[in-house]
């Protein structure tokens, strides 16, 4: 099991963001709720092939 702090640090590092230790602690503390809210999006019933609401257009 990867610690939440490790996950958060890795994601921030991948984005190149360097918050202060206090800010990092806040992000770590808030991450479980953040992740749970995002995970809940996958529980919404929908067609397996449902498209995203934003659609690509080849026209400029």
């Amino acid at each position, binding site marked *: 099991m990867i610690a939440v702090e490790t996950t*958060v640090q890795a*994601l*921030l590092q*991948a*984005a*190149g*963001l*360097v*918050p202060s230790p206090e*800010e990092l602690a*806040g*992000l770590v503390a*808030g*991450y479980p709720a*953040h*992740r749970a*809210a*995002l995970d*809940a*999006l*996958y529980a*919404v*019933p*929908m067609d397996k092939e*449902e*498209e*995203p*609401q*934003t659609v690509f*257009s080849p026209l400029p």
Partner: protein
Amino acid sequence: MSTTTAVTAEPFSLAGDGLPLTISMAAEALRSGSLTSVELVQKTIARADRLDTALGTYLARTDQTALEAAARADAELAAGHDRGPLHGIPLGIKDIIATDEAPTTAQSLILDPAFGEKGDAVVIRRLKAAGVVITGKTTTMEYATGCPDPDKPFPIPRNPFNLDAWPGGSSSGTGSGVAAGLFLGGLGTDTGGSVRMPAAWCGISGLKQTFGRVPKSGCVPLGFSYDHIGPMTRSARDCAAMLQVMAGHDESDACSVDVPVDDYLGALTGSVEGLRVGVDVSVFDHPGLDPDTAALLRSAVDVFTALGATVVETVLPWQEELTTAVLASSAEALAYHRGDLRTRWEDYGASTRMAIGRAALTTAADFVQAQRVRRVGVKAMAELFSTVDVVLTPTCYTDAPDLATLDWATMFRMINTPYWNAVGNPAISVPMGLTGKGLPVGLQIAGRPFDETTVLRAADAFQQRTGHHLQESPVVLKELSA
């Protein structure tokens, strides 16, 4: 708590400075000859001289160019060249929308000054063609997100009804400025409620029209697929007058939708007879709903019943999930800001950098899933609005928070607005009375996509019956009488 309101029977402020309270009232005065645009703008400038330092409404005032524009409007009106109901009317513009009159800063140390050098945003060009007078650029949360940061060199916006309270945001200055009469209308932007929240907490009206109805090119982006530029005024009628000018397709905005523009002012019949009004009763179980706001909402529903509407109970589907889908907009913001956040983290406000930087914890799949959930929401709205014509909710669950205790996460739990950014439907906030603390709260009225006429008709009918939108701030009246 006040469910009825004592308002002036005259079309001018109780402050005694002869300022019309609404755009409609001012337009009438300009055409009757009882007021000129120059006199009108001078009155708003005089108010700004007295109140702006306390309210933190402006980032930049453009007094001289405003007076010049007002003089042009007077000359045109005198010559019989009438550009319509906004001709000669002073407006404040949120400082993330480009105007020729003043730089655009997004209230940030970050934004490249070259952004504002591209000239007027499309909506500004349209408003100028309608003869408006721009009085200045108004305060915002940095890049339209986060909370005020006292460590940065910008004004702290304050609520006209209580200077210790926040006016809401991110369109803070436009909200406080309309409420205090520093201008009669203005522009805000709304990605998760940034027009409607300050409208509710400043006791004015604010419209987030359907996504794509008004081109947003020339506005600093926050969430590309969630952003709206919307009108903020005292009355729904005035929002209709502004939308009439602002609406319409423009190729410069990839999100702009090419649909006909309706006759918004012509739709304001004052009647909601037979209109099917849904009330989202789930809000009464919301743990954050304060008793005063709940009582004011019930009184507002009673008004619609008295007006002959058919009121039905309903529940908005997927509320938590669609709100989360709006939080995913920070991923769009991070795409825009990542380079600057990597190199200039400390130059951002503390709350802003955290609000945007948090998106690094959202994966690409999460973001796409949020857009799929939005599609589910759009389909659910089609079903809901086959049974009702509009839906009522409180705009926010409470009145305005104290500035001293304000933080972004707490604020986000107080608002009931992001839902409509997720699905894109139009929603307006109109005042529905004062809480026991003497602070305004808003009634949110939402409707079908591109059916702003019904939303505005319902809001206008409510205001014709209640008059809450004419409530003036005792703080402002006291200062002006001193």
